[in-house]
């Protein structure tokens, strides 16, 4: 069974530029999560989707961050414009409905903003 797929794996951009991350969850997983992981820290939830609906986006900085999950499968996380402090690893995870405690993570996208 394929795991959670994320792309790109690495991204280097200049500040004020836009950037987008893509996630393909495990087949059949209707819950999808985006996390932010700073160096030496644990993941912090940005947004959670149940199918195509964002059910928890309270920690998403909506002035510059946006996300979408069309058709309840793949998801895209966007930052526009990026700031130096956005440099981090962006992780995507997914889980089965009713088993939200068991989340499966992708390898992440490491973003460097210069």
């Amino acid at each position, binding site marked *: 069974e394929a795991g959670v797929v994320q792309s790109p794996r690495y991204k280097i951009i200049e500040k004020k530029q836009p950037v987008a991350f893509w996630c393909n969850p495990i087949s059949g997983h209707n819950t999808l999560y985006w996390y932010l992981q700073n160096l030496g820290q*644990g*993941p912090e939830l940005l947004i959670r989707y149940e199918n195509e609906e964002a059910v928890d986006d309270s920690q998403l900085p909506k002035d510059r961050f946006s996300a979408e999950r069309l058709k309840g499968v793949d998801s895209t996380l966007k930052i526009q414009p990026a700031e130096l402090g956005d440099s981090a690893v962006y992780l995507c995870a997914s889980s089965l409905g009713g088993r939200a405690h068991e*989340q499966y993570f992708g390898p992440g996208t490491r973003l460097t903003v210069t």
Partner: protein
Amino acid sequence: QQQVKQSPQSLIVQKGGISIINCAYENTAFDYFPWYQQFPGKGPALLIAIRPDVSEKKEGRFTISFNKSAKQFSLHIMDSQPGDSATYFCAASSGSGAGSYQLTFGKGTKLSVIP
């Protein structure tokens, strides 16, 4: 406000020794306590988890000990191997209420097992 406190930040153990990582939580609504293992360049992977109705859970060389009254839980890795070298995160979540199913992670423990 950090709801899950993890210690130590780093740990060096000799091969064959016991690795012990501790976590403490504040929110009494938490009802699920997983541990995740993360290798460099990889995402966290679920290692083992426990619910507060049991005091201990063992899977192979990995054991979670849970103390509900003290609001503490720990991971024990028996017969530690160099392949166990990774960063370990404790986490907690609740199945109801605001933020349900949201995993709150500790800051992580970098474990190095030396031959």
